[in-house]
């Protein structure tokens, strides 16, 4: 650590060693970092996802905070009930956090999530996004990016729709806070969780969570690939307050998307033309984001 630099991330640990995540799991690292920011007065609601397994089988738990495992599509609704019960006990200190995957958020849980944030339920909803149904063996979700191989979008029939704009959907609900975060930017991630924790109402944090088996990358490249997603502007780091105030937190130079895509075998079938289409999409989305920043 250089002179004048300080370690910004709390050293407290709320995730024990010995969880059952795959080596290099982005979702595991994301949880570890998030809990450092959230602290011990947190109740986690875990809808079906990789984390249903990572947290450990009965009678074990990989986490030192209370956890309620719930059904796939109930991340928004179960948390609303937990919050209501805490309110009845006048417990204003405890933060209710739903921790869901992209399937539970973008697809099956979208209705309950929309209902909860439309009511501005007082909780943080986290989507750790590994861009497919990884726990069941890498099936396409609406978070899967254009062109990616999955077990239900095999080569020759890969996904030809872009990824759903989840933060845009949340922003359209005009919730107090929506943000993206990335395990390769831990200070930014921790700051966002600390900021979210201090706010009231519905808060949404979308974390890109690399998945070595699903993305066909080596375990030790997990963080590097995650960083490249930001550097290529494929996964911009930004915040939206009250649905209108946009802020970009990291401004990368914008490396060619091919550098990101070529790191992962789920994209290895892509042609130069495919990559050009992706580059075009990424450039357009970045411009749109810049426009929103400029007009907010």
């Amino acid at each position, binding site marked *: 650590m250089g002179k004048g630099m300080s370690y910004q991330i709390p050293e407290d640990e709320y995730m024990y060693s010995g969880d059952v995540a795959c080596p290099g799991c982005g979702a595991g690292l994301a949880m570890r970092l998030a809990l450092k920011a959230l602290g011990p007065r947190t109740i986690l609601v875990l809808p079906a996802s990789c984390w*249903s397994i990572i947290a450990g089988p009965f009678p074990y738990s990989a986490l030192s905070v209370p956890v309620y495992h719930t*059904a796939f599509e109930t991340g928004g609704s179960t948390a609303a*009930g937990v919050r209501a*019960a805490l309110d009845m006990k006048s417990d204003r200190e405890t933060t209710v956090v739903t921790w869901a995957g992209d399937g539970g958020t973008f697809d099956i849980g979208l209705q*309950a999530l929309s209902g909860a944030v439309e009511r501005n339920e007082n909780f943080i909803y986290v989507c750790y996004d590994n861009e497919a149904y990884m726990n069941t063996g890498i099936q396409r979700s609406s978070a899967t990016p254009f062109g990616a191989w999955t077990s239900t979008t095999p080569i020759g029939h890969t996904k030809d729709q872009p990824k759903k704009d989840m933060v845009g959907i949340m922003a359209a609900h005009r919730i107090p806070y929506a943000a993206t975060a990335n395990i390769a930017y831990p200070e930014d991630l921790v700051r966002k969780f600390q900021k979210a924790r201090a706010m009231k109402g519905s808060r949404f944090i979308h974390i890109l969570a690399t998945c070595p088996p699903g993305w066909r990358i080596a375990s030790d490249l997990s963080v590097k690939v995650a960083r490249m997603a930001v550097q290529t502007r494929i996964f911009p780091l930004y915040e939206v307050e009250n649905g209108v105030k946009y802020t970009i937190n990291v401004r990368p130079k914008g490396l060619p998307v091919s550098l990101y895509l070529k790191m992962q075998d789920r994209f290895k079938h892509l042609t130069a033309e495919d990559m050009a289409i992706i580059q075009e999409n990424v450039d357009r989305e970045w411009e749109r984001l810049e426009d929103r920043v400029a007009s907010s």
Partner: protein
Amino acid sequence: MEKVIIGNYAVSYGAQLARVQVIAAYPITPQTQIVEKLAEMCASGELNARFIPVESEHSAMASTIGAAATGARAFTATSSQGLALMHEMIHWAAASRLPIVMANVNRALGPGWSIWADQNDSLSQRDTGWLQFYCESNQEVLDTVLQGYRIAEQVMLPVMINLDGFLLSHTSEPVDIPDQALVDRYLPLARRDLILDPDDPHSFGGLVNPEHYMEMRHKMHQAQLQGKEAAREADAQFKAIFGRSYGLVEGYRLEGAELALVVSGTIASTSRVAVDRLREQGEKVGLLKIRMFRPFPGEEVGELLGGFKKVAVIDRNISFGHGGIFCQELKSALYNLPKRPQVYGYIAGLGGRDVTPQTILDIAELTACRNVPPAEADWIWVKV
């Protein structure tokens, strides 16, 4: 205090008197008035509770579960399609061992759309682990909400209270609204252990390997069975404080009867009228009302019906391909008795078809002139 109220409001007053703390609900006919009334009570401060106006019944049950898992006394109400949509979470509530009480207004399932009375909605939830009660009057509805919480919190399983759509839900009857202080004595709010609490962190509902899952289900089954004793105790205490009791089943004019009619819900009150009429004519007919469906009160049924030659079960429900559901349950409860009666099955009143005293009289007559029960249940007054 006596009030003339509809069955739906009897549920609302029951929930209010139980001092429920979290209500999550979604509108559906003919249930809606229950939660409208509760929303009003929360808004006016008559009831100190959080009301969550969720976007679906699936979410209603999920929110109710979240609240109960955090230690709140939680309540919801639904009907028919809403109950069907909840199905996944109905299982979740029971296997989470949460003392939730839910009112279900019995209504037919579509298609075709029908909003009228029919028990197929709740009976489709038979194997979820919930205790189930079927009510005959608005007074019984209110009283069973209170008894329901007492039983649920004792055995740590959820309780479903069923009332017939429109026949009770929208029908006004005089109801004694018990005194709050007495209800508080009957149903004190106690802090539960093993809830979501940062000061005592636990993980609930995670992955269970085969070496533990079966034991958890065995405990659920044992808790269901204990539900009978818990219900007897809750009913006895209720009688001691409020002067009313219902039993798990209720026999009516069974003494000296040769034919026993077996019914549930509002068909019971109609059948009382028919039985009185038959008795006046010298016919030896009595009635058994089944109030508790899960756990099934097999012993009580066996004791009361064991000596009969003929039993006629009237079902406002149908298990397609195997007849009326109460009828099946009754047969299985009677099967191992040394001397068991003939059981005649009748299907009546589906989708709100009127069941009048004449329906019951026809069933009694049909049963009287037969010597052997037919293989299939009779569909009463069905146009074929």
